[in-house]
């Protein structure tokens, strides 16, 4: 069994598989997906090579004369095929993997928490079971975000819809679940324009759902991730860089950063006057270059709910796996992706395990990639001790693709 959690140094180990024929410091290696730009390099696992060199990754996937290599170093360090090499993130931190995955491999795609990443699915605000077309002021009395956040929504009336706006003969949209997102509000909206009066700079998206299907069973999560024009900046998304030699060796180049002395991970009792916390308990992680005991709330990479409704740390946005049975029985990597191809005269299945004491809202649907919902498809489901199993089968000559219509609206783990 691999390590599921690691704290401290986030070093990864690799074997060189190819080298540039002319330029030292450019090579490919195993498990390259774990290597982030600006990771430090070591040939012995404990120190940088050479004297007073601060060697790090300047580029991922550089291409030379048509050949792409995994990494390019800032120094021409010579390595040979089959050498063992090491890459280490600049600051210590925490990594937590999915089941059946070794966290020390450092593959972010298979990690549930990776403190190397600046922006994660931290929940700023959330709501569920909403059946109103009115605007939702998710900010409340919390401090306002410095950006329009990504709001993940789900509601019963989503997808294609036809309706009639004003004097129009018909209105059609591919996505009825429309909203107007701002820094502080989530407003149900619709695409609705009187065609004979749609002139000049008129816009179709308007607040309200007077014509399109009403809001029904809306759930939403406001994440601390900017997602609006003007806010997609390095300052909002990237770990800090500097030309300062602070914390590095003597031969430093621009755009690398290593600030020593910060507390990044705290498990237990936290006091942070900048964030307004005094003796709150849980697990807290700050972003690179900041100290968990003094950083701003937006610099938290991870936090625990304080139990105060108006506070803005509500846990993590996570998704349940849809292959629980194979995770348990055959060490598959958990995935939330419910896409299955079923050839004719065969069947496919997904399984979801809900251990929590709260009953889930479950719905399922499926589609045939070529002809929509198909009458030749049979569907069955069962629930036993929290394990939801869904089986689809078809005897048609077509191939059934279970794609986005195949939804189980059971994705929220940070339920409160």
């Amino acid at each position, binding site marked *: 069994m691999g390590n599921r*959690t690691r704290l401290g140094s986030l070093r990864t180990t690799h074997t060189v598989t190819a080298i540039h024929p002319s330029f030292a410091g450019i090579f490919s290696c195993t498990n390259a997906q774990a290597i982030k730009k600006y990771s430090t390099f070591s040939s012995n696992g404990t120190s940088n090579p050479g004297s007073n060199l601060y060697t790090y990754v300047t580029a991922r996937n550089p291409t030379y004369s048509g050949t792409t290599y995994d990494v390019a170093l800032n120094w021409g360090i010579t390595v040979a095929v089959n050498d063992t090499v090491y890459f280490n993130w600049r600051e210590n931190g925490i990594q937590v993997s999915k*089941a059946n995955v070794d966290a020390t491999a450092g593959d972010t795609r298979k990690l549930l928490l990776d403190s190397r*990443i600046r922006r994660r699915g931290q929940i700023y605000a959330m709501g569920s079971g909403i059946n109103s077309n009115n605007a939702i002021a998710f900010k409340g009395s919390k401090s306002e975000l410095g950006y329009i956040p990504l709001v993940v929504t789900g509601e019963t009336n989503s997808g294609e819809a036809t309706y009639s706006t004003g004097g129009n003969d018909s209105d059609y949209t591919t*996505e009825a679940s429309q909203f107007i997102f701002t820094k502080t509000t989530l407003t149900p909206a619709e695409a609705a324009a009187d065609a004979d009066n749609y002139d000049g700079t008129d816009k179709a998206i308007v607040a309200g759902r007077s014509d399109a299907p009403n809001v029904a069973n809306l759930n939403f999560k406001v994440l601390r991730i900017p997602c609006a024009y003007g806010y997609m900046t390095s300052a909002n998304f990237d770990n800090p860089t500097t030309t300062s030699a602070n914390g590095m060796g003597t031969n430093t180049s621009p755009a690398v950063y290593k600030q020593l002395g910060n507390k990044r991970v705290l498990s237990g009792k936290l006091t942070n006057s900048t964030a307004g916390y005094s003796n709150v308990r849980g697990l807290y992680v700050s972003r690179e270059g900041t100290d968990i005991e003094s950083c701003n709330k937006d610099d938290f990479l991870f936090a625990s709910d304080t139990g105060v409704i108006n506070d803005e740390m509500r846990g993590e946005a996570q998704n349940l796996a849809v292959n629980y049975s194979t995770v348990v029985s055959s060490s598959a990597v958990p995935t939330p992706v419910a896409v299955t191809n079923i050839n004719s005269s065969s069947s496919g299945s997904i399984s979801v395990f809900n251990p929590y004491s709260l009953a889930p809202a479950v719905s399922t649907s499926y589609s045939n990639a070529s002809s929509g919902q198909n009458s030749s498809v049979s569907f069955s489901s069962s629930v036993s*001790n929290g394990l939801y199993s869904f089986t689809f089968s078809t005897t048609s000559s077509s191939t059934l693709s279970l794609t986005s219509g195949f939804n189980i609206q059971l994705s929220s783990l940070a339920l409160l």
Partner: protein
Amino acid sequence: MSNRVVIGRRTSASNDRGLMISGLDTSSGSGTSASPYARANVLSVNAQNKGNAVHNFDSGEHVGGGFHVFHYAQGSLNKNTNTNVTHNWGKDNECATADRPLFALRWSYASDISSGVATKCYKPMDYTGELQIEEDEEDGQDEENFQAVEGVDVQHVNNNTINIDNLMLGDNGADNSHNGHTIYWALVVFYEDDWNGGRSI
């Protein structure tokens, strides 16, 4: 006070390993600063020895993924134009050819932009509103067609590239007078695989 955080195995009889942090127990407290909700007990398990309290974070075997940002981008598009954004997710992550990353796109009208940043934004969609007025011989009125066509489409071309298409066609050649819209878009691509069938979340 209930236990809040487990690093390792939840209980000796449990297979849950990793990091688990409980959520709240709303049966105790009122959610105010003076009286916060209590913490749920992270050690509470069900008949299968699985943690059954509400969680803020759970790395149990039933959890499929989270939201780590892999790539971000923004830009503007004139009507009836499109652009490819190359994020190299497939190149930087060990994945099958058919795999695609989860992503989110939001867009704004020009009038939503103030001091270089959006004040409002919306989800991708296609919309068509139509009205046809039949010819009236007595009034000598010709048949007229009116349309309102707006759309922002986004889809992955492959696992390294995503295409954004501005289909703000305005009147689309009909009898009303609308020249369409320029859009201002923002894109986030996640490390997580796309669990939404190619649609933006």
